[in-house]
């Protein structure tokens, strides 16, 4: 009899203790949720399609609230949901500037050198697992495996002579190729700004020259010639500040390696 009583008391007591402890912890560790979060969630379509690049509508709502995503980031809800969210947040919703993907490498089969011939799956991930991260001498360049082409749902990417080319008209800036590229050389650039640096190499000038005929050698000629302070060479690679660039294309003309495209 006493065993039954003891076991019931002991387990019941422990259960009670844990229960009290947890409910106390629940008060202690309470996370304040912004009431606007629920409102934004309601304003979104709720389809959880992932077209915005987030895991679902709830994740996008959190990102919008945190300021990491624009109120008009939902491509499905369009203007209606963007306006509703703008009203909740109390901000003016502006139409997002059109962007498109850009492959920061110009070294096709003729322009860059290779250390071996890759014969295998047409997948950049597979090619990169081999010796030295791919067949190209340049460790930064496009592998030409076509992983971005395969992942593009809009047929905007095509492989031309071993290098990925983006069709600016077809590209919707969904960002799938940006995530897919194992070399991380695809970026989203403003659609209207065509002056871009088509190189990702952070090797020094000598190495770049040995590997590729269209690589950035960090000579800073572009930086010196830009009247608007829009081109800067950081860590041995030129980059265009799209905010400042006026597309005079002086840098593209002066570039000795012709790695700035227009």
């Amino acid at each position: 009899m006493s065993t039954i009583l003891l076991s019931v008391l002991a387990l019941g007591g422990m259960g009670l203790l844990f229960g009290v402890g947890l409910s106390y912890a629940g008060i202690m560790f309470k996370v304040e949720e912004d009431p606007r979060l629920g409102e934004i969630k309601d304003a979104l379509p709720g389809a959880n399609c992932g077209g915005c690049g987030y895991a679902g509508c709830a994740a996008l709502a959190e990102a919008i609230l945190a300021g990491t995503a624009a109120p008009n980031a939902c491509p499905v809800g369009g203007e209606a949901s963007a306006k509703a969210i703008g009203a909740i947040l109390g901000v003016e919703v502006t139409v997002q500037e059109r962007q498109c993907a850009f492959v920061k490498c110009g070294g096709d089969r003729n322009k860059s050198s290779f250390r071996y011939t890759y014969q295998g799956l047409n997948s950049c991930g597979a090619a990169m697992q081999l010796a030295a991260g791919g067949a190209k001498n340049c460790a930064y360049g496009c592998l030409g495996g076509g992983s971005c082409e395969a992942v593009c749902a809009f047929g905007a990417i095509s492989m031309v002579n071993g290098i990925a080319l983006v069709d600016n008209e077809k590209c919707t800036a969904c960002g799938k190729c940006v995530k897919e590229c194992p070399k991380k050389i695809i970026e989203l650039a403003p659609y209207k700004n065509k002056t871009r640096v088509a190189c990702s190499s952070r090797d020094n000038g000598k190495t770049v020259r040995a590997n590729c005929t269209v690589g950035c050698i960090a000579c800073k000629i572009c930086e010196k010639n830009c009247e608007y302070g829009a081109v800067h060479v950081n860590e041995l690679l030129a980059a265009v500040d799209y905010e400042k660039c006026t597309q005079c294309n002086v840098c593209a003309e002066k570039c000795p390696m012709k790695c700035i495209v227009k």
Partner: protein
Amino acid sequence: MQVILIFLSAVLVNNFVMSRFLGICPFLGVSKKVETAFGMGVAVTFVMALASAVTFLVYNFILVKLEITYLYNIAFILIIAGLVQLVEMYLKKSSPTLYQALGIYLPLITTNCAVLGVTVLNMENYSDSFLTSVVHGVGAAVGFTLAIVLFAGIRERMEHNNIPAAFKGFPIALITAGLMSIAFLGFTGLIRL
């Protein structure tokens, strides 16, 4: 010295996944990416260390004293469930990013047999020493993390391989797990306690 040996034997020789076959569910479920696998490993380590400590205290100072040791299973499950809830609340408050990364796997640790397994093994083998129990718990968890991270690394690479259609996905993962288990058999006899 004994403690170090117990730790190493829990990590390598008696690896929870590879030779005791505990915690297979998260081992297969959360091993698609090294990053999430590592996160899961860290969460399991945390819970196992805490569970080892608390179950030792409860077993020695409540169950043994009241002579109701036959209730250890229920008591341990209760403790683990409570602990996981507590860890979840704490993480949600203190580190939302880690909480997000672990996602559903955190509450799933409640039903992870490796955690219950480590507490039961502690009770059977090391019920006389608090330190040894906790070290064994941490060792088992590190072993779990090692196995799941290695496995995730292999699976990440297999993604790009040319696998026959019939073997794609879980079949090849199970075969790989079997081969890994055989490889871990190589540690047998490394440590004699």
